[in-house]
């Protein structure tokens, strides 16, 4: 949406200035690297927003959109992905079988998530087709 990348890139630029200050004054490689990494992450986010929608770099209020979009109401697989990550890492410390169980659960739930997203896309296509028929 219009302007969305501006605050992200602007904030990244303030960070960049401070990082240069850090490199010059503090000159510790660990610190400089950490600060630079943060700048890269923020710029990457800003650039990603900009690439998704070019108007994200333009000023002014967003205009009304006309496209149809999905609004997912629930996602069992997303919840299970979170649980699977927790289970696997917990298993790393507590009991190895939980690690393998967690990984298996993760793979299975990612698979289910793909189905969920495809089903959702299909329903969006249906709505679009109905609209065209009318």
């Amino acid at each position, binding site marked *: 949406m219009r302007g969305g990348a501006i605050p992200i890139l602007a904030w990244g630029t303030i*960070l960049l200035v401070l990082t240069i*200050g850090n490199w010059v004054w503090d000159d510790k490689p660990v610190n400089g690297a950490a600060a630079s990494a*943060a700048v890269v992450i923020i710029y990457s986010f800003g650039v990603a927003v900009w690439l998704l929608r070019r108007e994200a770099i333009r000023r002014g209020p*967003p205009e009304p959109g006309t496209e149809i979009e*999905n609004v997912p109401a629930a996602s069992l697989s997303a919840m299970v992905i979170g649980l699977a*990550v927790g289970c696997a890492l*917990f298993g790393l410390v507590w009991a190895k079988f939980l690690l393998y169980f967690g990984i298996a659960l993760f793979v299975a739930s990612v698979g289910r998530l793909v189905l969920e997203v495809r089903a959702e896309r299909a*329903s969006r296509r249906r*709505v679009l087709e109905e609209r065209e028929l009318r």
Partner: protein
Amino acid sequence: MSVASAPPARIPRFTGWLGAAVSTDHKRMGLTLGVCSLFFFGLGGVFALLMRTQLAQSNMQFVSDNSYNELFSMHGSTMIYLFVTPMAIALAMYLVPLQIGALRLSAPRLALAGLWTWLCGGLVMQQGWFASGGAGRAGWSSIAPLSNGTNTPGVGQDLWVIGVLLAACGTLVMAACVLATIARRRAPGMSLLRMPVFTWTALVSVLMVVASFPMLVLVMILLYIDRHGGHIFVGFAGAIDYQDLFWFFGHPVVYVMFFPYLGAAAEAIAVNSHKRWFGYTAFVGSIMAFAALSMAVWSHHMYVTGGVTNQYFAFTSTALLVPAGIEYFDAIGTLIGGAIVLRASMLFALTFFIQFLVGGLTGIFVASPVLDYHAFGTYFIVAHFHYTLFAGSVFGFFAGVYHWFPKITGALLREWLGKLQLLVMVIGTNLTFFPMFFLGNDGMPRRISRYPTHPGWGTLNELETFGAGIIALGVLLFLINVVVSLRRRVPAGDDPWLGHTLEWATTSPPPPLNFEAPLPPIRSYAPLLDLREEALDRARERREVGPA
């Protein structure tokens, strides 16, 4: 933006508890995150009460030294990773889409996965209590080499590392979703400089999370490897490297735990003064600079190590004073000439600003290396950060709760109970944390389970323990208020306070897609106030109302 109305064929419908657990509605996720955070607040509070009981008198034997180490480590970790930070994200997740007129959160499935990852992290961390050797006990920062496999052996500390890792990943993902929502889902007309004050504070907070939490994830991975024979943080250089990396996350997170509560207090002050937030553009600029600057101060936690450029970090830390001053200036500017109503939310917000000032001003003291050499590792520091995080942020949180509870639940909280809670908490907070300044100045070290009989220390510590009990009473009053208000509901209506921002233009609680009626025109950062002012102007033109 239109919405596909037909439900996808292959996704089953869920109801009840499971329905709440798998919902990708930002309001439901925000509420789940908030309620879980509140549970961890209670847990961390119990740890604090146990610590204060141990410290009530000199040479007490209420808990063992090892248990005390667990208690202070888990108190700090629970409060920071599992309460104040996630609660800030919960507020943002619930309110930001409403405030910017969005129908939903961006990447809601990712946010849901993050929510459950975070919750797993919290549970894994607490699982340490059942491990042999006990829970994590190397402090909330788990500084190396104290936290390595030799000095803190055992599964409990490993569970702490994994718990923090999971909580950090979850928080990071949720914050990224909020950031994407602000960037991509603002309603038509909602330009950047028309976003509400709270949304701006949420924006800078999630920017800081996205910039700094990857470092926490990295540090926890490195610490885990180090604890299992990796030998990463070795010797003096290794110890300094750990701290440099950890505090690169550890300072910004303090501001993540501040900005959204500042935003909540600011909204409460503006609405209860019946005025626009004063100096909006300066405020926006200042919090952008404030947040960025707070990414450049981290080594002020390390002045005494002898391994940092003290001048640079003293300079940046002291510079934080400027944007902080602008915030106070704006708050006072909003109050001046306002039609002030002293509701519970307003009183909590005002107390937030007053009490945070104590934390902020003592922050200037310890930003100076010379003064920090004296204060470092003492109760002075404990007092300082509890004035920012508890006397500040938690009061800002309650300002937000009293302000938005009617929107979230459709029921009003009991005002008198809220004011009583405020009174009790103000007494408890200052009784607990103010004496710590004297104790710290007198040299009482933090993180000790027993202290020798020393003139004055006994009395001050007893006062603190007494104060901690009073705080607990205040929290209890809050819980009673919530239960009573939900059981015997006083309907709030859509806009009980004459709110300024879009969340007050929808029903309480809001419908699944947030807005059923068309949004009011968005011409400023207070669109509902605009509407009321326009109506008043029209009425004046028709001479229904006398001159202003």
